[in-house]
């Protein structure tokens, strides 16, 4: 009987320990899944897998970057000389061109002879740049396949353009999204900090019990309102207001996003700062008052400095929330993937991009992986912020 009970105790303890391990396991799994999918983008090329890019075998150029190909398509690059080849104009050859170059008779009614036509065209045109589906490339192809450089971390992080489904090459530069995220977050904190801190001070020190007892549940309730509801409110009230007040072509903008996010960050900042202010020992307040300081002087010179690390922690947590916020931002910022220049223009954040595009991205494809890579960036940002938060929140006063 005794033995049995001991065994049961051990089993229960084991079950408890296993439950406690789940959060850690989840964090690890998140890291594994996110980074496995996200990092694999750096072994991919920015063109579709079944696209062949080739040149005449006499052409010395054997490597091209995604950007160069895009520039050739946009006719910003028109001569091989510009990219290290001979002085010869570039003749782009795509399916469109095939239709005008060859007759239907040459290609065959079901394009069964198209491959041969393409091959011979490449052989007889020294300046050709072939961009064709691999379906129409013959086995004994006589052109030279061009190697496309893999996506590099540098081009990914520093690229200024985000057109993940663009033809001929996907443009995967996340700089606009990172900057968009930071801009909106910064705006939100600049708005929420003074308001939140003032409210926290009012609630902790100035308001009497009764007022505080009314304020506290309201703030708690607002912390629980779903972000889509804030987004909805922003869309219907704040976006038109911003448009009207600042006379903008569209109201969806960094400013609208910052305001909505700021409102959403208020409850977090108020609650945590208020708690921090309340931890100030009574002895410290009394010491200040006993020296003839007024209540306001005591708040300003003793209570706020004493609570400063808690207040900082509140700000950090507010920033973390704002960076990761998805739905509200998606609904009010206009989602233009451009490097932000002003708060009065639309911009786009990382979470909003993932939410908006993942549904359309083909499973396992380049775009899909790129969105997971965005997830990695977001995860790293918030992870660092959390570490800073923990560090500050734990820091001893003495």
């Amino acid at each position, binding site marked *: 009987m005794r033995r049995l009970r001991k065994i049961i105790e051990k089993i229960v303890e084991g079950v408890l320990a296993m439950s406690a391990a789940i959060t850690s396991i989840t964090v690890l799994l998140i890291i594994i899944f996110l980074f496995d999918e996200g990092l694999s983008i750096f072994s991919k090329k920015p063109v579709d897998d079944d696209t062949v890019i080739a040149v005449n075998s006499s052409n010395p150029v054997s490597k091209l970057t995604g950007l160069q190909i895009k520039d050739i398509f946009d006719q910003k690059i028109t001569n091989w000389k510009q990219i290290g080849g001979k002085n010869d104009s570039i003749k782009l050859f795509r399916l469109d061109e095939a239709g005008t170059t060859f007759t239907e008779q040459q290609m065959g009614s079901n394009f069964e002879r198209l491959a041969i036509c393409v091959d011979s065209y490449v052989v007889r045109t020294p300046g050709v740049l072939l961009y064709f589906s691999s379906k129409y490339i013959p086995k004994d192809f006589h052109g030279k396949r061009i190697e496309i450089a893999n996506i590099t971390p540098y081009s990914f992080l520093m690229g200024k353009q985000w057109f993940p489904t663009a033809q001929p090459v996907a443009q995967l530069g996340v700089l606009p999204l990172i900057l968009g995220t930071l801009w909106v977050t910064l705006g939100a904190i600049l708005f929420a900090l003074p308001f939140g801190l003032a409210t926290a001070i009012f609630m902790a020190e100035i308001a009497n*019990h009764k007022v505080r007892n009314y304020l506290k549940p309201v703030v708690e309730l607002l912390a629980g309102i779903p972000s889509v509801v804030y987004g909805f409110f922003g869309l219907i009230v704040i976006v038109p207001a911003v448009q009207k007040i600042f006379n903008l072509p569209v109201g969806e903008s960094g400013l609208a996003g910052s305001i909505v996010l700021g409102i959403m960050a208020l409850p977090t900042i108020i609650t945590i700062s208020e708690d921090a202010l309340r931890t100030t*020992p009574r*002895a*410290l307040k*009394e*010491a*200040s*008052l*006993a*020296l*003839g*300081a*007024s209540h306001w*002087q005591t708040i300003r*010179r*003793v209570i706020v*400095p*004493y609570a400063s690390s808690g207040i900082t922690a509140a700000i950090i947590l507010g920033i973390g929330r704002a960076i990761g916020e998805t739905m509200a931002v998606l609904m009010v910022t206009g989602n233009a993937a451009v490097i932000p220049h002003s708060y009065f223009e639309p911009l786009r954040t990382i979470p909003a991009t993932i939410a908006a595009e993942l549904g359309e991205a083909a499973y396992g494809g380049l775009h899909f992986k790129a969105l997971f890579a965005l997830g990695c960036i977001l995860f790293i940002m918030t992870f660092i912020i959390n570490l800073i938060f923990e560090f500050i929140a734990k820091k001893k*006063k*003495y």
Partner: protein
Amino acid sequence: MAKLSANKVNLFYGDNHALKDVTLKMDANTVTAFIGPSGCGKSTFLRLFNRMNDLIPHVRIEGDIVVDGEDIYSKEVSVDLLRKNIGMVFQKPNPFPKSIFENVAYGMRVNGIRDKHYINERVETSLKQASLWTEVKDKLKKSAFELSGGQQQRLCIARALAIEPSVVLMDEPTSALDPLATHKIEELVFNLKADYTIVIVTHNMQQAARVSDKTAFFYLGELIEYDDTNNIFTKPREITTQNYITGRFG
């Protein structure tokens, strides 16, 4: 005329009748000790003189508290000025989360003094009065929390002295300190007597005997006996006092 006096003071914390008809007069440049078992109202009575009880909700005060001939609970009195004139040292050292210098300068700053020379001078003088100067003069910019408990308490005394009060209230200033630090503070109290009126709450009777001129014994919210310290400890009039000082309770 008495420096501090209380006349028929009653104090209620809600329904709790914490002080009952207390009448007491203290002269300038004396050290008065309040003794009695804990919970008998010593701190409550002490805090009447700088109106610290005002901060507690649901407190009701009856009777007169007079400092320098002025009823300090009358409407015309400025609490800030009163507290500037009456310094206080608390049970546990409670320096501000600031530098040593700023701790001492705090009282001057909040009372509108901006003159740098004057502040520097006062900080030095006060630290010397609190016999802390030699220990901290090279690290005035350091955080006050780097000091030991005893040093922190002397810093709190210097902080109180810096705004030139005429009265210093001390609420069990040595209860959190070791014997050596306690000894230093007691010495200090003795030296300060020349310039200040000092009231010290203690439940250490040897301490009361060592430092005070007069002793008041409180029991259950009442002032049982008030006399020269010598008399209280050698020939108390009341049986309760006698029981207390001979250690029968408390």
